């Protein structure tokens, strides 16, 4: 029989990876819980503010993904005023968001994901980092990663008016057009980003397909869940970060929903569990069966692999080829292998680089018509984009003078919350047998949730040290072991 323990609120630390693993009497894993942060108090903070301030406020929620919040927020503002933005404004926003995704995906892959494959999972932790990667692949690649990361950041800065805190997107469009000089500069940088992204995909394919230990790690059953997937698709069903409809597919790959952002409440419900501050979104029409996989469970996943799984393909040629190679490798669609999120992320990085270049070459990009001043009566509005980490919903309700009455955000990491817990539990189950804890536990559990690129940093980092991780193993009322890294 499984004995349960209550985790009191005082132990609910925020801002770092805190994991509780519960063992049954035989010493095997009964349950595992990963604590991630929630944006508590945000609604209250926003109440009574003019809605047009929201794109600047929400971009400061998180130091990692200001660009995605800026875009989802301004789209919600457009909807609040019922305004249709000029084509050039939409293209500017798309250019900005694509550059933002390139920036985020390059960082995640090279700083965090790649070292598990190059130099490799068997490498000691001290060398399994960005420096070990540069050692293994050479200084030149390291320099190019930094350089192209800088380009992706610079493009965002040119369009958004500030490199860190975007300010240019306004209800009804953009604050100013792009000059021809800026367009040319962006085009040059985008060319370099495409080559960088192609090389990153090649690096991953070589590290996975060329090394059996990695292919079996990715293709094995430790990191595998048959779940639903959700993500934005364009009118042809292809991946799109800025706009489209949210498509949901079943574990068998069948479309179960295709909806406009405005209808999200018909499709997504949020469950509250006593052990976490974080809500657990699930598919309303399937229903909540707990943190379990399979077609009967409303648990769904977002982020890179989910976007590829719900799409018919990629809208750019090089990314489409890479997409086809991924599905040919696994031979199934959807792909349920969690570590393939890394591969999918690089395919998206290539797609967004190609999109950045395509948009930079668009003759309409320097059009002076970038804003329609909203004249409608404000009401409520919902904006959705794909953030790097998955679908991001902003929902605002205002009074008749445009002051915020109600705010609801559904961020990507929250939507992957149930799946991350399942992944942590599965990895832990493989590494804890009859009370014996494998030395690889921390690393392997970390790989389980890192594939989702969770925004543990979304709130304040209340603790010092490296990416802090704390795993507590409980049996009955007893703590049998506590493993920590980066905590003092």
């Amino acid at each position, binding site marked *: 029989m499984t004995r349960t323990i209550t985790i009191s609120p005082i132990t609910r630390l925020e801002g770092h990876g805190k994991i509780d693993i519960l063992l049954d009497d035989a010493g095997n894993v009964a349950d595992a819980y990963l604590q991630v942060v929630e944006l508590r108090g945000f609604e209250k*903070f926003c109440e009574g503010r003019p809605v047009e301030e929201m794109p600047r406020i929400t971009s400061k929620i998180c130091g990692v993904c200001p660009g995605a919040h800026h875009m989802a927020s301004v789209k919600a503002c457009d909807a609040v005023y019922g305004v249709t933005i000029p084509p050039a404004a939409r293209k500017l926003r798309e250019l900005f968001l694509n550059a933002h995704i390139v920036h985020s995906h390059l960082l995640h892959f090279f700083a965090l994901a790649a070292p598990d494959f190059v130099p490799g999972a068997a490498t000691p932790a001290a060398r399994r980092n960005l420096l070990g990667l540069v050692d293994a692949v050479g200084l030149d690649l390291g320099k190019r990663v930094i350089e192209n990361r800088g380009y992706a950041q610079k493009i965002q800065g040119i369009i958004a008016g500030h490199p860190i805190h975007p300010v240019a997107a306004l209800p009804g469009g953009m604050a100013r057009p792009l000059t021809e000089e800026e367009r040319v500069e962006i085009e040059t940088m985008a060319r370099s980003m495409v080559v960088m992204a192609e090389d990153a995909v090649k690096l991953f394919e070589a590290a996975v397909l060329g090394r059996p230990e990695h292919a079996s790690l990715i293709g094995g059953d430790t990191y595998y869940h048959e779940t639903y997937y959700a993500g934005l698709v364009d009118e042809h069903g292809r991946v799109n970060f800025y706009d489209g409809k949210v498509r949901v597919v079943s574990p068998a790959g069948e479309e179960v929903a295709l909806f406009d952002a405005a209808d999200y409440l018909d499709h997504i419900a949020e469950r509250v569990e006593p052990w976490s501050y974080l809500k657990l979104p699930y598919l309303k029409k399937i229903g909540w069966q707990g943190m379990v996989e399979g077609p009967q469970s409303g648990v769904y996943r977002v982020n890179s692999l989910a976007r590829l799984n719900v799409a018919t393909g990629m809208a750019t040629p090089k990314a489409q080829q890479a997409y086809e190679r991924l599905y040919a490798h696994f031979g199934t669609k959807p792909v349920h292998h969690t570590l393939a999120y890394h591969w999918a992320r690089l395919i998206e990085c290539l797609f967004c680089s190609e999109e950045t270049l395509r948009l930079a070459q668009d003759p309409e990009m320097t059009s002076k018509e970038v804003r329609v001043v909203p004249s409608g009566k404000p009401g409520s509005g919902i904006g959705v984009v794909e953030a790097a980490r998955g679908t991001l919903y902003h929902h605002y309700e205002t009074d008749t003078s445009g002051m915020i009455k109600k705010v609801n955000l559904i961020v990507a990491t929250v939507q992957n919350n149930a799946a991350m817990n399942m992944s942590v539990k599965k990895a832990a189950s493989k590494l804890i047998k009859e009370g014996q804890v494998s030395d690889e536990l921390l690393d392997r559990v970390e790989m389980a949730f890192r594939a989702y690129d969770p925004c543990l940093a979304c709130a304040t980092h209340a*603790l010092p040290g490296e990416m802090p991780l704390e795993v507590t193993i409980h049996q009955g009322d007893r703590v049998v072991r506590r493993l920590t890294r980066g905590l003092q």
Partner: protein
Amino acid sequence: MRTLIVGIGSTIRGDDGVGVHAARQLRQRTLPAEVDVIELGTAGLGLLDHVVGYDRLIVLDAIVSGEEPGVVRLLAGDDVARGAHLAAGHEADLPTTLALGRTLVAKRMPAEVTVVTVEVGNLTPFSEHLTVEVEAAIPEMLATVEQLLQEAGRSTE
């Protein structure tokens, strides 16, 4: 000595933003010509966009280390990883960023790195205001920075 001062944090996350508030106050003062002050949300690889070419880096940041709120500390050497935003769950942390920078562009990276921290007790989730204790610590942070700048001035004379 070319010096870059970086204030880190979010100004809508209460005391989390103390580094940015301090940087803004510092910018109001008369600083030596070779000193630049900027703001960042985090101190990951993005720092490399700004720091290359400087001789020295001074970071202003919040920290939670169990001391009384408002306590100001100066971190150097291996301790620079301990500020609230110097660890990164999403990408490279400050020591990795600096080490990578030195590997890639050795001669153009600051040789000296110090972090001025303020202990923040209550990380209010969303507020544009600092708590009284933390706000009161800003003058000491700024005095610490100015002392660092003066020491450098003397050592180069």
